[in-house]
């Protein structure tokens, strides 16, 4: 038997598909799927000319877990823990999209107090998500200290959320017609305390990181995405707002009680990584603003609809529900045939559209800048692969 010990240079299916090129002096490079800057199992095929990227193509599907198929097999309440597993950083928004779609189809009314609790917890979770992005992004850019400060704040928020939701990351808190547990005075007091603390911390973050010269050199005028490119790829969230378009689902298609709160939608016209960075930093402050307003006007009442069904069985029909996640517009399109599980559930992951931009934006940039662009898109791979 003769073993062929030559290096297999042909690559796998994706590499072969990516391979054909007119140029002969370029190199095909695999970034990922275990690259630390991809935050998960994202693989990017790069055609490089020296340090410059000629072409880039993300390869997805390494953590595909059939979340959409599972919705067709599991009954509605059984699917409740699933959305949190798609985007583990902003789990509550995904859970909200699911319960919101089912509630809309059933015509189930959510008590006002439950809506306020949802807003408060979801915004706390958004701050958490942005804080982790902030720390991890700076880690990608070579700064180690900020993630420690970010986790200091995150732990406090997680402690607050743990007392009501019972978990620290993959929350399963929202139920059809409300939430699973009421908040108490201690929750309110702790949240207020954290809000005032966070305001001080933001000043520190600005001094430590945002004004930092080295960071500015790494993010300013890097990865410029025009509004038209965002529209072309369907990018939403901070990526779109960092390109100057003030689109936020909380304002554009107000759901729940968001129309009662007074908050700004931060936008930046610079279109670069700094713009997206600033949008997220401002968004955290807006979230705190919303939380404080919600705590001030928190009504009394039920935390779950008294006649909320234990086994939800929506009538036949189809429904669409969108919420604003930390990464953009989360949508769920639910088609029901009147059975105990969904006929079809389509999840729209904002990260997928945002990632699709990467190929266009990164061509012509340096590899180290591509890492910066990738980080500024705030990708959560399990959400993209679903």
């Amino acid at each position, binding site marked *: 038997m003769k073993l062929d010990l030559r290096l297999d240079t042909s690559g796998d299916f994706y590499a072969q598909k990516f391979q054909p090129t007119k140029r002969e002096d370029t190199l095909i490079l695999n970034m990922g799927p275990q690259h630390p800057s991809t935050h998960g199992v994202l693989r990017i095929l790069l055609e490089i000319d020296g340090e410059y990227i000629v072409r880039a193509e993300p390869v997805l599907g390494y953590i595909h877990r059939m979340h959409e198929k599972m919705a067709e097999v599991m009954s509605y309440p059984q699917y409740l823990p699933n959305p949190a*597993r798609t985007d583990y950083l902003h789990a509550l928004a995904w859970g909200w999209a699911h319960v919101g779609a089912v509630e809309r189809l059933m015509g189930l009314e959510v008590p006002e107090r439950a809506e306020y609790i949802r807003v408060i917890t979801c915004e706390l979770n958004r701050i958490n998500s942005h804080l982790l992005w902030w720390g991890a992004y700076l880690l990608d850019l070579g700064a180690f200290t900020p993630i420690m400060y970010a986790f200091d704040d995150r732990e406090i928020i997680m402690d607050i959320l743990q007392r009501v939701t*019972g978990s620290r990351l993959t929350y399963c808190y929202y139920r059809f017609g409300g939430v699973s547990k009421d908040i108490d005075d201690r929750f309110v007091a702790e949240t207020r305390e954290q809000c005032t603390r966070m305001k001080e911390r933001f000043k520190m973050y600005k001094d430590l990181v945002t004004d930092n*010269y080295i960071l500015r050199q790494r993010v300013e005028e890097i990865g410029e995405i025009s509004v038209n490119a965002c529209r072309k790829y369907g990018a939403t969230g901070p990526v779109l707002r960092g390109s100057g378009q003030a689109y936020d689902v909380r304002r554009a298609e107000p759901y729940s009680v968001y129309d009662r709160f007074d908050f700004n939608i931060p936008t930046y016209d610079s279109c670069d990584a700094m713009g997206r960075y600033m949008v997220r930093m401002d968004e955290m402050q807006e979230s705190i603003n919303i939380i404080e307003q919600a705590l001030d006007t928190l009504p009394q009442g039920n935390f779950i609809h008294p006649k909320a069904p234990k086994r939800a069985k929506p009538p036949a029909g189809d429904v669409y529900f969108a919420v604003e996640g930390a990464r953009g517009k989360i949508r769920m399109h639910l088609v029901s045939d009147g059975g105990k599980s969904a006929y079809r559930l389509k999840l729209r992951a904002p990260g997928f559209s945002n990632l699709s931009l990467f190929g266009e934006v990164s061509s012509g940039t340096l590899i180290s800048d591509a890492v910066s662009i990738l980080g500024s898109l705030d990708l959560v791979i399990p959400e993209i692969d679903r």
Partner: protein
Amino acid sequence: MIVKSIRENLGGMWSLLVGLRVTSINFFRPHVTVHYPRQCVPTLEGYRGHIELVPLEKDPLKSKCIACSNCVKICPTSCISLKATKPKKAAVAEGADSPAAKVPSEGKKEAPVKKAKPELQSFVLDYNYCSLCGLCVQSCPTGALEFSDDVYLAGFTRQEFVFDLLARLQRQAQKKEQ
């Protein structure tokens, strides 16, 4: 042009000094973290660990579970399995008064059997597959399930995470008695 770049660089250096001030202030602040194996966090209130059975108030060796299987049906990952025995007709007849025992023999459909509660034999939780959603606790009609607060649960094999909750309940009850 040169003046502009010098000013930019000086401003940049100043920003680094401002950053250094922040880190040096934090350097002299007390620790935020704890040295885990030697120290533990004071409270982890609200932590939802794996589920466990709630004992009856009068008999701590028995659980409140009535073996209705609601939790088994609703569990998304089907990690709960329970066994219950239907009380035997003879046993019911022994326990009940003799005229009542005669009723089923006359043709009416097992009326005394319906009244007798099935007894829980085993309640096994495969914690490997549990996603801690809490649907079982919510769906329990008698409140026989609760979350444990065992934060530092760890093991070497998968089999260690298959819990016999009824045995655990009895173990805990015996421990309390001692």
